[in-house]
């Protein structure tokens, strides 16, 4: 009997070991671009492409992975007003289901981006897809509709003629949806079960393409949400939207704040490192460094280093305590996708579709492989199931060890 039980347990353990953590939203579980338990391939070439799935229409949103399912969004139609949510089997690349909706808000956006630019998010039971039209769709993992909101339908001046790109994040029972623009600018926290607003706060009336980040100051601490804008960074309570503290020295509107080892790295005055504030104390500036100014990609904190990629495609590695640059590596750019990290490697895909893998050494980084996917890629990839998932307009790829 004992022997039988062990026999049953072995495959179960094997399955558990092969399953890493999910990549449930833009920039991963903690919005810090890092997969801690994953080991994607460290050297890549064309033979590492496990599968390729065909897509139609446009999409600059990143894939997310929940269990064995990969979710992405896209749009079709001359005006990109057909909104798609798609689900693929992560093992085979087979499309499991697809749902479509009509945009209820404006679909005008810059030619480079798409109405499907915000990366979807998941709480493990539901998938939340948002679009530049400010439509928010909630489906279960099998594609059954749970609820829909049309935030531009509700608030007609909530739009951006260049397009909305901020990705939503899920914290507890709240879906944080930024709708920040030049006119009716707000961020709202929607109840994940119903789509009804738990709160809605006014935000600076300036177009903003940055995405929220999670701040968890200790393993036991309640997570807070960091909202970045041209005015700086607001730390808010996800259940209520109330502000806990603010950094008011301005910040960028494209790359987003990243948190590492309880320090915030804000695209502000180049790059600014902050210790978190509290309700009684404002945040403290540790350092500011113009040389670390990020381009479009957000900063990354990994293995006691802070990384940025500038507009020229140079990867900067700096000391996170001082901001002093320790090494630089010129990569083939330009980059829109944020670099992601796992197993001592950084993965950077440029706008031309060249995925470059950088192995981290003590005092330098070295490109150990690349794959030319030969299509425009703007979306930040996902890491899950010991693999990388990348998407262009036309294809979704899984990159795995051979």
């Amino acid at each position, binding site marked *: 009997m004992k022997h039988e039980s062990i026999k049953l347990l072995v495959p179960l353990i094997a399955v558990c070991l092969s399953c890493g953590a999910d990549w449930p939203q833009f920039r991963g579980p903690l919005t810090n671009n890092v997969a801690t338990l994953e080991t994607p391939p460290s050297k890549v070439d064309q033979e590492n492409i496990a599968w390729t799935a065909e897509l139609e229409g446009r999409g600059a949103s990143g894939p997310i992975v929940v269990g064995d399912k990969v979710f992405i969004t896209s749009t079709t139609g*001359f005006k990109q007003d057909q909104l798609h949510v798609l689900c693929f089997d992560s093992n085979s690349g087979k499309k499991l289901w697809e749902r479509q*909706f*009509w945009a209820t808000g404006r679909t005008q956006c*810059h030619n480079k981006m798409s109405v499907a630019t915000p990366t979807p998010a998941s709480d493990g039971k539901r998938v939340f897809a948002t679009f530049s039209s400010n439509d928010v769709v909630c489906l279960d993992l099998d594609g*059954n*509709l749970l609820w829909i909101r049309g935030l531009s*339908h509700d608030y007609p001046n909530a739009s951006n003629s260049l397009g909305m790109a901020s990705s939503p994040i899920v914290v507890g029972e709240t879906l944080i949806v930024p709708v920040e623009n030049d006119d009716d600018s707000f961020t709202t926290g929607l109840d994940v079960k119903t789509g009804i*607003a738990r709160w809605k706060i006014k935000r600076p009336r300036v177009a903003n393409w940055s995405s929220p980040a999670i701040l968890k100051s200790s393993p036991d601490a309640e997570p807070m949400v960091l909202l970045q804008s041209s005015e700086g960074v607001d730390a808010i309570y996800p259940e209520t939207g109330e502000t806990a503290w603010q950094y008011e020295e301005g910040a960028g509107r494209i790359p987003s704040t990243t948190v590492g080892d309880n320090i915030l790295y804000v695209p502000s005055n180049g790059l600014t490192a902050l210790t978190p504030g509290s309700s009684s104390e404002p945040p403290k500036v540790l350092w500011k460094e113009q040389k670390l100014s990020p381009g479009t990609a957000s900063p990354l904190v990994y293995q006691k280093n802070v990384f940025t990629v500038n507009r020229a495609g140079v990867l900067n590695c700096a000391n996170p305590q001082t901001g002093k640059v320790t090494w630089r590596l010129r990569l083939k750019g330009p980059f829109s996708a944020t670099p992601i990290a796992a197993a001592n490697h950084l993965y950077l895909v440029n706008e031309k579709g060249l995925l470059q893998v950088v192995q981290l050494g003590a005092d330098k980084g070295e490109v150990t492989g690349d794959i030319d996917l030969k299509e425009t890629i703007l979306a930040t990839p996902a890491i899950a199931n010991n693999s990388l998932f990348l998407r262009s307009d036309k294809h979704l790829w899984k990159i795995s060890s051979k």
Partner: protein
Amino acid sequence: MKRSSFLFCLMFLISSLTTVWADDVEQQISQIKQVQKEGQGNLTASQAVQKLSKSDASALIPILTSFENANPIAVNWLRGAFEAIAANAIKQKTLPTQKLEKFIQDKSQNPRARRLAYETLIKVDLAAADRIIPGMLNDASVTLRREAVQRLINEAKSLEKADKKEQAKKVYQQALTGATDSDQVKAIVKPLRVLGDKIDLQKHFGFLSDWMIVGPFDNREKKGYDTAYSPEEKIEFSSTLEGKEGKVNWKSVNTEDDYGIFDIAKSISPYKGAVMYCAADFYSPQEQSLEIRLGTPNAWKIWVNGKLLFARNEYHRGMVLDQYNVPVKFKPGKNVILLKLCQNEQSDSWAQRYQFQLRIAHPSGIGVLSQKAEATTQLTP
């Protein structure tokens, strides 16, 4: 006798169950259609959509029919249920293809519902496109019409290649009658003009090209957007008004641009920190619900017959055709459109545009002309 009684009971039971089931579908659809702004009705609709999604294929046509009079959010909820049922029906090979095709051909039905029926049908019957699309050239469904136009463009191109110019010209002309998307219009107009056709694109799209204009008024620090200058109170073309740089008068302007663009910066002056007011008449033969379609990189407000319809405080985020679609109900006869256009003080090279284009269209995108061609002459002081 016993056997016939049994059959009667069985039929009665099936009939009753079908009625109960149909009532359930109707009830679920009705609950979904009650969703309103800000998530009102979401709880009930969520339960209803999950039940409705488990229905069999016979619920598909009732769902499509229910699109009529449903608000845009409810339409998306209904679509969610429709797609779940249709996906199962396709797997089980129970998709009611004939009923779907009949629904598509019924032009009294909701255009989006017909498009959804079409997209579902061609998943199992690709040949249906050849039967359906050619008849959709002037359809109320924007996307069905687009496909019909594209077929004609392709046909005309082939004729051109075969050096059958007169035939190509006729097909292009036919395509233009249904074309409203700018890419297709350009693809038609360019060869047509080469083939010798004179095309009035302003007329095709329904652009207003003749305007009365007055300004500049003060918009330094963007304060003019919320300042109600004299034209917002009363439009009197003969009056002299106090502007930002002294006395100003209404003057008549016109644009010959194909796409109705009137460029204030080039045609009048590259004002900065300024407000200009532009007025035009639109004559409607009867009361009708249409759309004002505006493109501008500047902040704006728009009134029709003195009623503020919409306002947008955004500067220099690009300008495209049909950038803003503002629903409007025109009264019979003369309607006065007043546009307030604000320029900020940004000095960046990409922030110097001060222009607009405005057209009147059906919700389907087809341009609508003012009833009287000489309408704008009514505005002459």
